[in-house]
């Protein structure tokens, strides 16, 4: 990654706390960078007023000798599906355009409690449905490495914003790869935790059995520092799990003696040769550093995309049923009856991909098809989880590419939904199994970034961060 105007997050906040840097200046620096790079379309809206007020109160507290949090004065950017005060939360959809949240998401509350300052909301595929940000109802974000290409998605705005140096970190969400794949496409670190490690309260829901909060950062250390603040149980999200008692910071880099499985099914047909080359060199570098890297086969892994595109649309169709034009957000004004208000509000408010997923979900859950599609998919999911569990009896980590290709051109896959879905073919497996996974910059192919995918057993997020840190050092 290129030199950054931001210090590592731990150092940056330490300097603010010590009075060497002012939160107000950091906020201006972030806003200025966002303005200077707005042609990339990474950002939907900035939150200048609230950010400046918060910065002033943090600076005043420090001046008065009061204790401030461990992210004091650190600006960040949230994907626009997090409910945040001071700005609309649109999920990049016409359906939610104009929606201002009556409360904030738990992770935003936790970050603010430690003094972090949200300066902007980042672009995404509408309702997080997509792999390129081309499904945003507003605009497509450009890849900083090549503006003719997509940044990946759905957290493409967040990933691009980090590479464009707009803030020290950004939040994303990952349902089937939406943090990892854009991180791979733009060249930053994208972290997807164990399912349930962070609260989803106050985030626009996509598919509840795989949705997680993720981070986009320059380094694994920055990711660890942020995760340490936001991880853990939340009474507002019953699916949350306990945080690691050891925490997530100060994780030593660890490579020597690690048993690493290179996933055979992720290295075969369909993977761009340039991507495979980068991943093989990473595996060689790990071997040279004392890791035991061997090939491993998970025969059901190629089925994961089919499982995903049954399970996820089913959950999407259920979660999006709340957008009925009656309680909040877009409502069709000229309906004569309640039913017409529902159908017109949804028909006009949702974009093409949301409608597509709602209808697939409705189909696979409908009477007569439920067993053949939904129940079958959830059972193949079990088979897939069993294969991951078997692999983790032999290996500490599994590796491979994050996506089969580097960033594709804007428009290249836009007219073929199935082709677009294939961009997620490697990231959906760990999502269905609830496994923590990370994308670490591993090199380039034709000058475009390639990310290394590292996957770990459930609840071993701390070990994964240590592995990522070691990988970062070897691949830098």
């Amino acid at each position, binding site marked *: 990654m290129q030199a950054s105007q931001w210090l590592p997050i731990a150092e940056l906040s330490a300097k603010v706390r010590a009075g060497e840097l002012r939160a107000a200046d950091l906020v201006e620096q972030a806003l200025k960078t966002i303005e200077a790079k707005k042609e990339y379309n990474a950002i939907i809206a900035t939150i200048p007023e609230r950010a400046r007020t918060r910065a002033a109160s943090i600076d005043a507290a420090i001046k008065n000798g009061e204790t401030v949090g461990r992210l004091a004065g650190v600006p960040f950017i949230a994907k626009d599906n997090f409910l945040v005060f001071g700005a609309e939360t649109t999920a990049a959809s016409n359906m939610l355009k104009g929606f201002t949240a009556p409360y904030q998401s738990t992770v935003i509350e936790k970050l603010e409690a430690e003094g972090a300052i949200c300066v902007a909301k980042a672009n995404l595929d509408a309702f997080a449905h997509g792999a390129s940000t081309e499904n945003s109802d507003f605009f497509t974000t450009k890849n900083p490495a090549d503006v003719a290409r997509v940044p990946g998605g759905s957290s493409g705005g967040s990933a691009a914003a980090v590479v464009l140096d707009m803030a020290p970190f950004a939040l994303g969400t990952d349902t089937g790869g939406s943090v990892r794949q854009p991180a791979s496409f733009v060249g930053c670190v994208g972290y997807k935790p164990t399912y349930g490690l962070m609260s989803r309260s106050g985030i626009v829901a996509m598919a509840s059995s795989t949705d997680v909060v993720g981070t986009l950062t320059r380094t694994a250390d920055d990711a660890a520092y942020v995760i340490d603040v936001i991880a853990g149980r939340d009474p507002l999200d019953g699916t949350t799990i306990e945080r690691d008692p050891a925490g997530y910071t100060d994780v030593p880099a660890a490579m020597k003696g690690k048993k690493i499985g290179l996933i055979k099914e992720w290295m075969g047909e369909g993977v761009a040769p340039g991507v495979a080359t980068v991943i093989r060199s990473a595996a060689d570098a790990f071997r040279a550093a004392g890791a035991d890297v061997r090939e491993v086969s998970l025969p059901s892994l190629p089925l994961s995309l089919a499982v995903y595109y049954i399970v996820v649309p089913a959950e999407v169709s259920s979660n999006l049923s709340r957008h009925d034009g009656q309680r909040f957000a877009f409502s069709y004004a000229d309906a004569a*009856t309640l039913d017409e208000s529902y159908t017109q509000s949804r028909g006009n408010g*949702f974009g093409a991909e949301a409608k597509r997923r*709602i209808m*697939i979900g409705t189909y696979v859950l409908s009477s007569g098809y439920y067993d053949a599609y939904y129940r079958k998919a959830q059972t193949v999911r079990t088979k897939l989880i069993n294969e991951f569990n078997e692999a983790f009896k032999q290996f500490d980590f599994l590796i491979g590419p994050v996506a089969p290709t580097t960033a594709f051109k804007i428009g290249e896959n836009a007219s073929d939904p199935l082709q677009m879905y294939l961009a997620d073919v490697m990231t959906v497996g760990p999502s269905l199994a609830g496994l923590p996974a990370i994308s670490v910059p591993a090199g380039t192919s034709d000058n475009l970034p390639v990310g290394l995918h590292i996957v770990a057993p459930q609840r071993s997020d701390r070990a994964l961060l240590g592995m990522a840190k070691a990988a970062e050092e070897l691949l830098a």
Partner: protein
Amino acid sequence: MADLTRDDVLKLAQLARLTLSEEEIEKYRSELSQILAYVQQLKDVDVTGLEPTSQVTGLMNVMREDEVVDYGVSPDDLLRIVPSKQDRQIKVKRMIA
């Protein structure tokens, strides 16, 4: 599975409460058929002896005390975002045409 018909798409749209334009009906007929054909690959997968998974971390029956907690969001905060209201109630269209 055979390709979806126009009537299948209309039925799905009706179940999902979506209006579709003529153009969209044909577009989704073709796209949804392709996607459903792709996921057909699960049909012949042997899953003998396996149960479906819907919750991956093994959590069951997460309970809390049944007590009122103030989260700082008032009914008025929620009414503020309602598209159409009268007094303190959500106003909807009549149900029978």
